C-alpha cells in the first residue's frame, strides 16, 4: 500500500516525532509507514485522515487496485 504521509507531513513542516505524537504511535512506526515497510491498521489510518482533514483514500492507495485498473484499461 502506498501513501502520501511524508508529503502531507512535509507540507505542514512537521517532524516524524511530532506526527507520531499526534497519532499516538512511535516515531519508528511513522517511518515504517512512510517508507512502505508497514501498513497501518484501519483505526490508525482513520486517525491520520482526521488529523490531516482528508479522506483515507486521499492518503493511502491500494497498489493492487491501481495495477488492476491499469490492466483493465
Amino acid at each position, binding site marked *: 500500500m502506498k501513501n502520501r504521509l511524508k508529503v502531507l507531513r512535509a507540507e505542514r513542516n512537521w517532524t516524524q*516525532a*511530532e506526527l507520531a*505524537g499526534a497519532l499516538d504511535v512511535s516515531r*519508528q*512506526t511513522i517511518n*515504517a509507514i512512510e517508507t512502505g*515497510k508497514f501498513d497501518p491498521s484501519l483505526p490508525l489510518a482513520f486517525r491520520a485522515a482526521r488529523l490531516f482533514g482528508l479522506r483515507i483514500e486521499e492518503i493511502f492507495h491500494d497498489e493492487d487496485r491501481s495495477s488492476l485498473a491499469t490492466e483493465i484499461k
Partner: protein
Amino acid sequence: MNQLKTLQNGYQSRIRTRTMRLACWNGAWLAATALMKFGPKFLWNRASVFTLLAVCLDVAVGVGMILATKKYVMELDELQQKVYLNALGITAGVALIASVPSYTVMDTYHVISFHAEIWHLLLLMGLTFIVSFLYGTWRYR
C-alpha cells in the same frame, strides 16, 4: 503545532513508565526465584514451610510479572506489538524444537556430556527473544 508538541511525548512517556514497571517486576521475579533456589540451602536449612512460602512468593510475583507484560504489550503501538509478538512466536518455536526433541534426547542417549537443565532452555529462550526483537526493530527502523 503547539498541540502536536504537547502530544509528542505522550506515547513515549507512557512506554517509558510501562517499561520501568516491567523491569521492576522482572527484577522482583528474579529475586524471588533466587530466594526459592538458594534459600533452602543457605537461609533456612531446607525447612519445608519456608521453601513452600518461597515457592508461593515466586508464583505470585510471576503472575504479577505476566500481568505487567500483558499491560506493556497492550500499551505498545501496532508496529511494536507486531515486532514483539513475532519475537515471542520465534522464541516459543525455538523453545519447543530445542527442548523435547533435541536437548532431552541428547541427554537421555548421552550425546552430550552434561545434564540438560531447564536453565539452559531459559537462557536459549532469552537470547532468542533478544535477537528476534532486535532483528524486528532493525527491519522496520
